[in-house]
């Protein structure tokens, strides 16, 4: 089966800065996570897929078309939610979603009905007549998601949809994105800088690092079933990492507040808690799945030493 979207040796510069270098990947049906640290080229890549940016090398295909040449016939089959969520504050949610349905070619009468339907679907059924300025960040992110879905696109591109959300809102949003991909059957590309988020919602992952595809493939293959454990302490993370490494757990600490430990080993949580007590540290957080890409790479490097 032909991929929904693909890139072959794509390059993109901004002046002398090479934002993307020799990027090659394929996006299949289902939910694909685009994972990378800030500045790794995620938004640039999405901009290339929607045809807003022109590649300086290589080629892109989206739904069998070249994004730069296909024009509106491709654009009305794509749903896009930008990273920014500062919508006009006095516009009501249903009006904004209806307006963007019309901008993607849905006749007005259908646009009104679909705006309501999709706002119900993202959990804003009762809030759909509220001005966006009175909504919480989580609700605004849902409005942004609704406008990307309202015209029933074949590919949905979500740029950092959990930005600014608290942990509960973030989990709700991730569950919603997962449901959109599974229950509603949309093909979704969702970008994030957090490995845990991408792992939670995606079937496949494309990892970007420094403008290159560091690796891509299914979640199970890439992570090998092990999600790193992230530990946050008030201070002393480096001492804790050294202590755990001494006990046979390859821990890495970027600074003195946070460290990551491979999550697959038996008894790892007990070992971390025991080490915290032994070193008389103050534990702030102990969580699976919130490791950054950098931490994942550092852990891999540490485990091969």
């Amino acid at each position, binding site marked *: 089966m032909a991929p929904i979207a693909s890139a072959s040796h794509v390059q993109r510069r901004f002046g002398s800065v090479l934002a993307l270098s020799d990027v090659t990947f394929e996006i299949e049906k289902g939910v694909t996570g685009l994972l990378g640290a800030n500045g790794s080229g995620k938004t640039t890549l999405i901009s290339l897929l*929607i*045809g*807003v*940016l*022109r590649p300086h090398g290589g080629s892109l295909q989206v739904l069998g078309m070249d994004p*730069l040449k296909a*024009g*509106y016939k491709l*654009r*009305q089959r*794509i*749903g*896009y939610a*930008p990273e*920014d*969520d*500062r*919508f*006009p504050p*006095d516009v009501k949610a249903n*009006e904004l979603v209806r*307006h*963007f349905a*019309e*901008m*993607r*070619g*849905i*006749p*007005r009468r*259908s646009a009104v009905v*679909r705006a*309501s*339907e*999709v706002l*119900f*679907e993202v959990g804003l*059924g009762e809030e759909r007549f509220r001005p966006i300025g009175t909504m919480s960040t989580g609700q605004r992110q849902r409005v942004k998601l609704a*406008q990307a*879905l309202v*015209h*029933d696109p074949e590919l949905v591109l979500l740029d950092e949809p959990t930005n600014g959300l608290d942990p509960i809102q973030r989990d709700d949003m991730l569950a919603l994105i997962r449901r959109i991909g599974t229950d*509603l*059957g949309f093909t979704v590309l969702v970008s994030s800088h957090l490995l845990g988020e991408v792992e939670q919602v995606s079937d496949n992952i494309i990892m970007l690092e420094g403008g290159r595809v560091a690796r891509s493939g299914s979640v199970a293959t890439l992570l090998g079933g092990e999600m790193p454990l992230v530990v946050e302490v008030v201070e002393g993370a480096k001492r804790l990492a050294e202590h755990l490494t001494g006990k046979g757990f390859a821990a890495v600490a970027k600074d003195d507040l946070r460290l990551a430990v491979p999550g697959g080993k038996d008894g790892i949580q007990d070992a971390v808690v025991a080490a915290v007590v032994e070193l008389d540290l103050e534990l702030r957080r102990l969580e699976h799945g919130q490791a950054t890409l950098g931490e994942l790479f550092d852990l891999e490097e540490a485990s091969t030493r």
Partner: protein
Amino acid sequence: MSAQAQIADRRFQHYEGPRLGPAYSFLALLLHSIRWVVGLGRSARYKIVPIIVIAIAYLPALVLIVVVTVAPGAPLPDYAQYYGFVLPSIYIFVALTAPELICPDRRHGTLRMYWTSNLGPFTYLAAKLAAIWAVLSIVTVGPVLIQLAGYSLFGVGPHGLTEWLWTFVHVVGGGLTLAVFFGSIALAVSSLTDRNAFASAGIILGFILSGAALGILQGPLKAPAWVALLNVNQLPQELVNRIHHVNGFTTVDLPTWEMAAAGAGWVVLAIAVLAYRYWSEGRR
């Protein structure tokens, strides 16, 4: 349960209806933009200022009709001279509406959502230009049409159908000239910032200060006549005078074709600024 009762299914359905093209989305954005800037469908505070400014623009027309009825034979201003009464309210109206048409989309980051729709940067701009021209026509064409209707109704208007129709064409043409001229320049100024207040101040200062500065050059400093072509305050008024074939309160010793070319040049320059600004933010 009644026989007509139905269970409403509000779940998301995949869409199988028609998908219309850019012409439909252009028209939808044009109508949305017009409604947006005059406050239709928005809270009362967005309606108050447009209503006041529109009322001020129409007030002289109503006063003139009253004058015609209570003081027959009193000297009356012609159609071109009407703008002498309402130019300040036209400036205020354009300074309020042009920034509101494009600055919020730039400020709120919604432009990229338009770029992934049926519209691209240039169709988006075309809809916004058509919207500002249409909205400004409310204050540049509408009041003078009321003046023409009032004069005609009370026997001081054009004589005969042919003359009336020509006057009507001149009134609409003069009003549209102002709308296109002021609207294009104001939209270009607005594209330089994403803050409404800065854009409004830039538009007002641009029109008034350029008029004042070039007025000094043309008057006391005896600058050559072509300097009038740079005066964005004087040039459109003089064009309206020429359309109505009257010697107005501004006198410019230049042929009409030069003035028309200069007016068109200003509009082309404004559209070029807009195109550059949106091209640089659109597909690169």
